[in-house]
C-alpha cells in the first residue's frame, strides 16, 4: 500500500553513487570490487560481499549479516549514521557567497523524520568561520546598565537553574533566493536554512536578575567572540521573556558549528539574533544599529524604505514528501508529509492543495505541536498518475495565515531578501518527478 521512495536496493544505489565519483577509466574496476570498496572505504569495517550476494540476502535466503558477527562496542566511541546514509548531509550553494568562510549550508529536510534535526545536520551560517574555543578559556561578560557587572565561566552558567525547550532556528534569508522567481531545484535549498533542536541553558532573565538591571535599561547587545564579532541589539522585553543562554543542544554540548561553548538563543526570532560563540552582553538604553541590523537583516520594500528590527519569523510551511529529492515511484496510496512553523507560537492548522490552491484539504498535525517549533503534518492521498500542483498553507495560533507569493510581493516587492514565507508549490509530473515552480 505504502512504499517509501528511495528504499529500493540501497546497496546498489550506494555503489553506483560511489562509482560516479570515480574516473571513468577506473570505474569498471571499481564496480568489480563492488561493496567491498563502498562499504570498507566509508566505515572501515569488513564488508565482504559482492553485487550478486545482494540478491542472496533477500528472502528466502538468510542474509550475510545474519550469519556472522558484527563490530563490537565502542568501535565508534561516538556513533555515526549508517554508511549507507552518506547522502544525508548539509550542502551549500557556492554562488550564494564570496567564499566558504562567510557562507551558509542547508539542512536536508527531505531526509528527516519527526521534528528534531540531528545536531550534525543543523544548517550552518558563519561570518568568519567556526572558531576553536577551549571551554576552560571561555568567559561571558554581562555589563552596561547593571548594578554589578559579572563575568561567568561555563561552570558558573551551569550552576544557574536551567531551562530546556524545543524550538526551530531559522535564518531570515531562508528561501530568499525565490523572491523574484523559482530558482532552486531542491527542497534542501528552497527551505533548508531551518532546523529544530532541543536547547538547554539558563534564561537570560535569570542572569539579568543576578547583575541587577538599572531602570533606564531598554536594549541588550549580544556579541560573538568569533572573528566577525557578530552583534545584534535585542529589546529587553524579549530578553526577559524566553531568551536562553544555551550550552547544550539535543542533549549534548553545543556543536562548534552552533556556537560552542555558549550561544544566545531567541526562540521564534530570526536566527541571526541567536549570536553564536557568545562572549558579551551589554545592557543599554538604545539600540546599537550595527552592521547586521542596518546593512543586513533589514527588509527593503518596493518604495525604497526598509523595515528594521523585523525579528519574528512569521508562519511558514512546506511539503517535504513528495518533493524534488523524493519523487513518487509508482501510483497508489501515499502519506504526504510536511513541516510548518511559526515564530509567533503554535501551529493551529495546515491545509494542503493538489490543484495549485483552488481547493484545499485539512492536514493532520503529527506528534508534538509546540510553540516556535517545527510541526509535522501529513495527509493520506492516492496518486493516479495525474500531474498536480501541491501546496501547503499554515495557520498559527494568532490566526495568521501563511500568505501567497502574490500577497507577499504586493506588500513588499521583490527585493526584501529576508522573511520570505510564501505558500510554496511543487509541480508533480506524470512520471512522478517533482520540480519547484511558482504559479499565478
Amino acid at each position, binding site marked *: 500500500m505504502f512504499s517509501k521512495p528511495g528504499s529500493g536496493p540501497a546497496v546498489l544505489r550506494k555503489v553506483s553513487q560511489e562509482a560516479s565519483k570515480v574516473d571513468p577509466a577506473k570505474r569498471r574496476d571499481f564496480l568489480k570490487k563492488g561493496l567491498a570498496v563502498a562499504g570498507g572505504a566509508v566505515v572501515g569495517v569488513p564488508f565482504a560481499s559482492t553485487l550478486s550476494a545482494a540478491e542472496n540476502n533477500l528472502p528466502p535466503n538468510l542474509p550475510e549479516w545474519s550469519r556472522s558477527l558484527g563490530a563490537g562496542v565502542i568501535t565508534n566511541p561516538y556513533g555515526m549514521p549508517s554508511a549507507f546514509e552518506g547522502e544525508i548531509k548539509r550542502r551549500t550553494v*557556492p554562488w*550564494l557567497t*564570496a*567564499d*566558504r*568562510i*562567510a557562507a551558509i549550508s542547508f539542512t536536508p529536510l527531505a531526509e528527516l523524520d519527526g521534528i528534531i534535526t540531528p545536531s550534525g545536520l543543523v544548517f550552518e551560517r558563519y561570518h*568568519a568561520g567556526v572558531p576553536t574555543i577551549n571551554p576552560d578559556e571561555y568567559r561571558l*561578560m554581562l555589563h552596561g546598565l547593571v*548594578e*554589578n557587572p559579572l*563575568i561567568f565561566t561555563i561552570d*558558573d552558567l551551569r*550552576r*544557574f537553574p536551567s531551562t530546556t525547550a524545543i524550538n526551530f532556528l531559522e535564518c531570515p534569508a531562508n528561501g530568499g533566493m525565490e523572491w523574484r*522567481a*523559482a*530558482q*532552486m*531545484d531542491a527542497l*534542501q535549498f528552497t527551505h533548508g536554512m531551518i532546523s529544530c533542536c532541543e536547547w538547554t541553558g539558563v534564561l537570560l532573565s535569570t542572569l539579568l536578575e*543576578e547583575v*541587577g538591571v538599572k*531602570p533606564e535599561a531598554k536594549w541588550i547587545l549580544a*556579541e560573538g567572540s568569533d572573528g*566577525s*564579532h557578530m*552583534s545584534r541589539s535585542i529589546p529587553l522585553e524579549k530578553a526577559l521573556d524566553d531568551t536562553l543562554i544555551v550550552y547544550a543542544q539535543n542533549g549534548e554540548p553545543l556543536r562548534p558549528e552552533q556556537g560552542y561553548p555558549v550561544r544566545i538563543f531567541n526562540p521564534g526570532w530570526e536566527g541571526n539574533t541567536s549570536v553564536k560563540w557568545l562572549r*558579551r552582553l551589554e545592557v543599554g538604553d538604545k539600540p*546599537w*544599529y*550595527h*552592521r547586521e541590523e*542596518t*546593512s543586513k537583516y533589514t527588509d*527593503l520594500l*518596493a*518604495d*525604497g*524604505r*526598509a*523595515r*528594521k528590527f*523585523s525579528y*519574528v519569523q*512569521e508562519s511558514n510551511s512546506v511539503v517535504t514528501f513528495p518533493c524534488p529529492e523524493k519523487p513518487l515511484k509508482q501510483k497508489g496510496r501515499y502519506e504526504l508529509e510536511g513541516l510548518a512553523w511559526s515564530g509567533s507560537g503554535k501551529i493551529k492548522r495546515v*491545509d494542503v492543495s493538489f*490543484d*495549485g*490552491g*483552488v*481547493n*484545499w484539504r485539512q492536514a493532520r498535525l503529527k506528534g508534538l505541536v509546540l510553540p516556535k517549533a517545527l510541526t509535522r503534518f501529513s495527509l493520506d492521498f492516492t496518486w493516479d498518475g495525474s500531474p498536480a*500542483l501541491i501546496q501547503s498553507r499554515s495557520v498559527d495560533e494568532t490566526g495568521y*495565515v501563511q500568505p501567497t507569493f502574490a500577497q507577499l510581493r504586493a506588500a513588499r516587492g521583490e527585493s526584501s531578501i529576508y522573511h520570505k514565507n510564501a505558500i510554496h508549490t511543487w509541480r508533480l509530473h506524470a512520471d512522478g518527478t517533482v*520540480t519547484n*515552480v*511558482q*504559479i*499565478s
Partner: protein
Amino acid sequence: MSRLANRIFVVSLLVAFMSALPAWADSHGKAGQYGIGKAATAEEIAGWDIDIRPDGKGLPPGSGSVEDGEMMYEEKCASCHGSFGEGVGRYPVLSGGEGSLTEPRPEKTVGSYWPYASTLWDYIHRAMPFTQPQSMSDDEVYAITAYVLYLNDLVEDDFVLTAETFTSIEMPNQDGFFLDDRPDTENTTCMEDCKDPASVKILSEPTMVTLAAQEDVAVTEETSSVDDKVYRQACQMCHAAGVAGAPMTGDKAAWAPRLEQGREKLLTGAIEGIGIMPAKGGQKQLSDQEVATALDYMIEQVKQD
C-alpha cells in the same frame, strides 16, 4: 534614634532599594541572590567593550584622514571590496547605488543604504580586515572609515575623521527605515473554489542545476609527497576557498605569475606577510622552515599533472 525616626529611615531605605530595581525584579528575587560569577573589572570591560552607537557613544580618541585612509584601504580592503568600493566577486560593494533602492536590482551600499556612519567605524574595527579582525589601531580605523565615506562622496578629500567631526556626517538614507509593523499580509483559509482553475499558470521554474552539481563542490583531498600538515593548519582556510583574493591551491592560472617570481620571493612574502595576508598567515608560532614546507606543498599542487 527615636522609634519614629527609625521607622522613617527604614521606609526610606526600602523606597530607595525598590526604585533602584525594575518592576519585574520584585517577583524574581534580587540582584546577586545566586552569588555566582566574578565581578568584571573596569579594565576587563574596557578590553572587550568595543561597540559604537549612532550618537557616537563608544568612539575612542584618535583621528584619521581620507588621505591616510587611501593607502591603508588599498592594502587591507581593496582585494575584496575593489579600489573604488565596487566589490570583487561576491564580496560586498561599498560605494555607488545612489537612488537605486526602488529599482529592480537595488545596490545597497554605505552611501545608498546605511543609516549611520557609526556602523561603519564599528564594523571595520569589529570584523575587518576579513582575515585579521581587530588588528588595526583606532587611528587606522578612523582613516579607513574616512576613506570609505569619501568613496561615497559623503566627505571631501581633505576630511579628517575624529570623534568630534563624526557628528557632522549626514547619511543620505538615515530616514529610510521604519520599525517592524508586520503582519502586513492577510490571507484567508478558503477551502473550495478559491480561484478560477483556468487562472492557475506556471510563472517560473528553476533555471539552475544546484543539487546535481554538488559533488563538484566537495573539497578534494590532494595527495602529496610534501608534508601538508602546516598547510592544513595555517593556509588551507584561505587558500582552499580563495578568501580575499588568495590564490586557490591547485589553481594553475592564479599561481603562474607568482611562480614566475621564484620560490624565494614567495617565501619572503609568506613569512613577512603580503597584501592582506598576515605574516605566516597569522600563525606567528610557525618557524620559517614550517612556512617553507607549506609553501612547497602549495607549489607542488600547481606543478602536478
